[in-house]
């Protein structure tokens, strides 16, 4: 065993010596054999010939000896790698193009994989996260309330959490905002009100202190708070002694009972359905303290719920129990039939929801780039191996086995791809930095992306597999070809060997086709983006400052005082010289969804609950529409004269007018909401305003004035102030105006409306840039491929071109001759690409806005552009063909 190892080691490390010894040994044998024949009387030359025949292929014999030494595989690999290195150094242009292509492709795919890995593949920071589900309620089939995921009502939540068998914990939570007052400047804290089982459902207990008990989750006992890690660090200097102290929230004392670990921030607005209003990131958690007993009239359904399934219970079993529960509720409340269905959504799917599909799109795009790069390098290799046909033919004639030659060629391509992979990793480092710098904050976990072990493994795997993928086909093709023909052909090149040319053409055409698909995809996304930012959102974003104001109930306990405070603030704001208009509303455009409610429309009988009309219900002030720039289409706006004592009025949006009063004049019609006994008179119609995303089609919406004691509470309102000039410059004056009303009121989320719209456009913009970048890369790669192919064709046909010129052909004819080839290839590639794009890009439909997935304009514009670029890539080598000197050309063959 030991001798074996030592022997192999010597054979490996002192390869040259061992090889020399083998040479000497064989030569000695040869000489001895010749001598024997000569002594027997054979002439020397004949003797040598006979011995050579007896030996057979000398190289083959040596190869077998090497195999017998037992180090062949490793040794061959080293030889091949060294040989590949020599070849690449010799052929610098080829090596540079191939490595650059691979660097680009592997760098791009590694960057994208690092994003996919961080967002979709890394485990969630919750233990046994697969057991955590968010069972959103669903609207009955056929009823459009504007949103897909609906909140639970208190009645259903309390009933289900008491009877559930499949969930170990089942908790409800809602978003809120509380003012932290007391020491230091007042700030508004992102708040989640959560029921007692919330932290155990997520499986994350506080790092310090404890979670809420069921006893604390009761009305009147809820004055306890758990701090988020960041707030604890920034406001309380990370002092553990803060637990047990009281802090002032909305003017009332709350006892700190715990601090959450760093990184825990659930629920985040970006990860929750857009129809709920959660803080960007919660700073504190307070008890939800749901009352017990029967529902009050008009009590809203606003609960988000989260549950942890018992160990071993599947999501499907949880869903089954939710379905049973829905049937049970329908028996108890038959008129609400259809409103109890819930969809048990796994936490992971909820958190990555909106990002998952664009990411898969990007993954598809980068896969196409990788394919194009592979076929590009395969083509380069094939072209080069044709030039090497003679070398390969000679070596196989000298006894090199076919497998051995293929192995060597594949080693060459793997060396190439390893170099490309190394470059790719460097590129990916830059790429990841770019993604972090330009990626929108609303993509969850994007900023955790890093070049870690799985990503490096991916880059390694991608390099290796591309090396084998693009190396194997050309290697097999060229070895098979070279065995017979290369030597016979005599010439240095195997001209037009049919199989090789077909493969090359196929690769070239597929490159053009793939690039076309990708460029069309990015074209569609660019058009989508243009439509999105140009789309009429029902408001004018420029020159508007917005902020949120929360009036704590301790200081503003009733509606009268609230309305007076808001009115005073609006008056102060309007008296600022630069302010054109100021108003307030429950939400500003793109500021999040408002309340959705069933509406009562006289003379429109409703027999079943699922026929009940729904509308968004938004409280606004006079001046609001002027401030956000929503055009008034009919009638009048709200006036200061609309007060609690005057006639109740409402304004509806165009969608509501068209849906419920088609073809009629709406002004003067009546509309009601279930909570209020009196109908309101519609006094105006405004344009449809987008609330959550730029691509939404706004549904019916009814606006009511804040001065007419509307339902529900108006504790938190959004202000919009339209100013002359730069809005950011007016922020100080705006703050001063509010402080003049009550200096204890903090302004939250101060932003310009343009910035809010910009945030909403950030994700589509990011995806568009990424796909477009890949489109450009694909186009460049395809052009490089085409350029190379035409160049090669020109070199291949130099002799022919020389003869044609010598026989009197015009240079223009030669140019056409060469270009025709490029045009043919491109035309086929474009045709195939158009068909492929037509077939596959339908999958993109949900990413698009204002443009069809099979948009003819985009398809043909891109096809023509690609055609032009492709012909330009052909033109340079074609020009070279016309400058061929006939004499030189003919001599070169």
């Amino acid at each position, binding site marked *: 065993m030991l001798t074996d190892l030592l022997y192999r080691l010597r054979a490996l490390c002192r390869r040259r010596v061992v090889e020399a010894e083998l040479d000497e040994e064989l030569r000695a044998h040869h000489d*001895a054999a010749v001598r024997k024949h000569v002594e027997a009387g054979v002439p020397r030359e004949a003797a040598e010939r006979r011995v050579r025949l*007896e030996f057979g292929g000398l190289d083959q014999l040596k190869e077998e000896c090497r195999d017998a*030494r037992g180090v062949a595989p490793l040794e061959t690999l080293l030889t091949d790698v060294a040989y590949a290195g020599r070849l690449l150094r010799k052929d610098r242009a080829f090596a540079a193009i191939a490595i650059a292509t691979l660097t680009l492709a592997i760098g791009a795919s590694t960057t994208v994989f690092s994003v996919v890995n961080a967002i979709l593949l890394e485990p969630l920071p919750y233990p046994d996260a697969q057991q955590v589900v968010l069972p959103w309620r669903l609207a009955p089939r056929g009823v459009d309330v504007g949103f897909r995921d609906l909140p639970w009502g208190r009645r259903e939540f309390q009933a289900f959490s008491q009877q559930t068998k499949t969930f170990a914990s089942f908790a409800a939570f809602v978003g809120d905002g509380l003012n932290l007052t007391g020491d230091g400047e007042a700030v508004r804290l992102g708040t989640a009100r959560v029921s007692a089982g919330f932290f155990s459902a997520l499986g994350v207990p506080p790092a310090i202190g404890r979670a809420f008990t069921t006893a604390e989750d009761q009305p009147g006992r809820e004055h306890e708070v758990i701090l988020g890690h960041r707030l604890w660090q920034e406001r309380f200097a990370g002092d553990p002694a803060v637990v047990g102290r009281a802090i002032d929230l909305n003017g009332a004392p709350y006892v700190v009972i715990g601090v959450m670990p760093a990184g825990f921030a659930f629920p985040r607005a970006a990860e929750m359905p857009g129809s709920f209003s959660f803080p960007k990131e919660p700073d504190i958690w307070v008890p939800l303290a749901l009352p017990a007993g029967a529902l009050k009239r008009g009590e809203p359904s606003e609960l988000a719920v989260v549950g942890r399934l018992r160990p071993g219970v599947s999501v499907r079993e949880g869903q089954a129990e939710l379905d049973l529960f829905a049937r049970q509720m329908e028996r108890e409340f038959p008129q609400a039939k259809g409103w109890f269905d819930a969809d048990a959504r796994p936490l992971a799917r909820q958190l990555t929801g909106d990002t998952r599909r664009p990411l898969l799109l990007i993954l598809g795009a980068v896969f196409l780039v990788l394919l194009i790069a592979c076929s590009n390098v395969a083509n380069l290799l094939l072209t080069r191996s044709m030039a090497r046909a003679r070398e390969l033919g000679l070596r196989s004639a000298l006894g090199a086995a076919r497998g051995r030659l293929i192995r060597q060629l594949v080693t060459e391509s793997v060396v190439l791809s390893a170099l490309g992979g190394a470059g790719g990793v460097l590129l990916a480092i830059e790429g990841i930095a770019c993604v972090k710098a330009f990626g929108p904050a609303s993509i969850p976990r994007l900023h955790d992306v890093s070049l870690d072990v799985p990503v490096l493994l991916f880059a390694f795997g991608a390099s290796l597999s591309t090396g084998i993928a693009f190396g194997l086909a050309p290697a097999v093709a060229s070895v098979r070809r070279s065995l017979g023909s290369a030597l016979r052909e005599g010439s240095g090149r195997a001209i037009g060997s049919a199989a090789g040319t077909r493969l090359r053409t196929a690769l070239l055409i597929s490159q053009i086709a793939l690039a076309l698909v990708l460029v069309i995809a990015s074209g569609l996304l660019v058009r989508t983006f243009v439509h999105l930012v140009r789309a009429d959102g029902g408001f004018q974003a420029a020159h508007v400052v917005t902020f949120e104001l929360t009036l704590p109930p301790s200081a503003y306990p009733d509606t009268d005082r609230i309305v007076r405070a808001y009115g005073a603030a609006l008056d102060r704001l309007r008296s600022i010289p630069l302010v054109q208009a100021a108003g307030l509303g429950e939400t500003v455009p793109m500021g999040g969804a408002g309340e959705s409610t069933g509406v009562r429309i006289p003379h429109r009988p409703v027999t079943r609950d699922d026929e009940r009309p729904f509308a968004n219900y938004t409280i606004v002030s006079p001046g609001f529409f002027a401030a956000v720039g929503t055009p008034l289409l009919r009638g009048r706006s709200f006036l200061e004269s609309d007060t609690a004592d005057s006639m109740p009025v409402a304004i509806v949006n165009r969608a509501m007018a068209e849906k419920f009063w088609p073809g009629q004049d709406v002004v003067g019609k009546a509309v009601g909401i279930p909570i209020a006994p009196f109908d309101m008179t519609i006094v105006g119609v405004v344009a449809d305003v987008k609330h959550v995303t730029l691509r939404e089609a706004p549904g019916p919406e009814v606006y009511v004035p804040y001065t007419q004691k509307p339902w529900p509470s108006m504790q938190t309102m959004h202000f919009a102030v339209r100013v002359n000039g730069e809005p950011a410059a007016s922020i100080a004056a705006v703050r001063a105006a509010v402080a003049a009303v009550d200096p204890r009121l903090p302004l939250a989320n101060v932003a310009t409306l343009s910035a809010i719209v910009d945030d909403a456009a950030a994700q589509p913009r990011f995806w568009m840039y990424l796909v477009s970048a890949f489109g450009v890369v694909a186009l460049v790669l395809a052009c490089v491929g085409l350029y190379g192919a035409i160049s090669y064709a020109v070199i291949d046909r130099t002799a022919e071109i020389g003869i044609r010129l010598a026989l009197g052909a015009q240079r223009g004819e030669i140019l056409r001759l060469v270009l025709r080839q490029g045009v043919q290839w491109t035309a086929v590639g474009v045709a195939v690409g158009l068909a492929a794009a037509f077939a596959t890009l339908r999958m993109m439909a949900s990413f698009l806005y204002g443009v069809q997935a099979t948009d003819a304009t985009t398809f043909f514009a891109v096809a023509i552009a690609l055609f032009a670029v492709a012909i330009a890539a052909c033109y340079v080598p074609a020009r070279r063909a016309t400058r061929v000197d006939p004499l030189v050309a003919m001599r070169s063959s």
Partner: protein
Amino acid sequence: MASSRLPLPQGTLDLLILRTLSLRPEHGWAIAERVQQISQNALQIPQGSLYPALHRLERRGWIRASWGVSDHNRRAKYYELTRAGRRRLESGETAWRKLASAVGRILEAV
């Protein structure tokens, strides 16, 4: 001329080489010649198999190589049997005899 010779049965090459080297250390050419002589030209080791076999045996530690000077005053690689090689030869010989006699009995019985 090759046709008059017997083909070398599978697996016997190692045995022949070890047996030849058990007499005294030899270089490759001499091993081939010796086998041919002793078998009275009935067996010939093809060069194509001899050297790979020598390298394989050396790797297994049954023979060991050293450089010496041949009869014709040339540097030559001499192979000699190691102790492991001798054991291998003995077990190989026994196995071969058993096989040969078994085959012989069957051939005679039919």
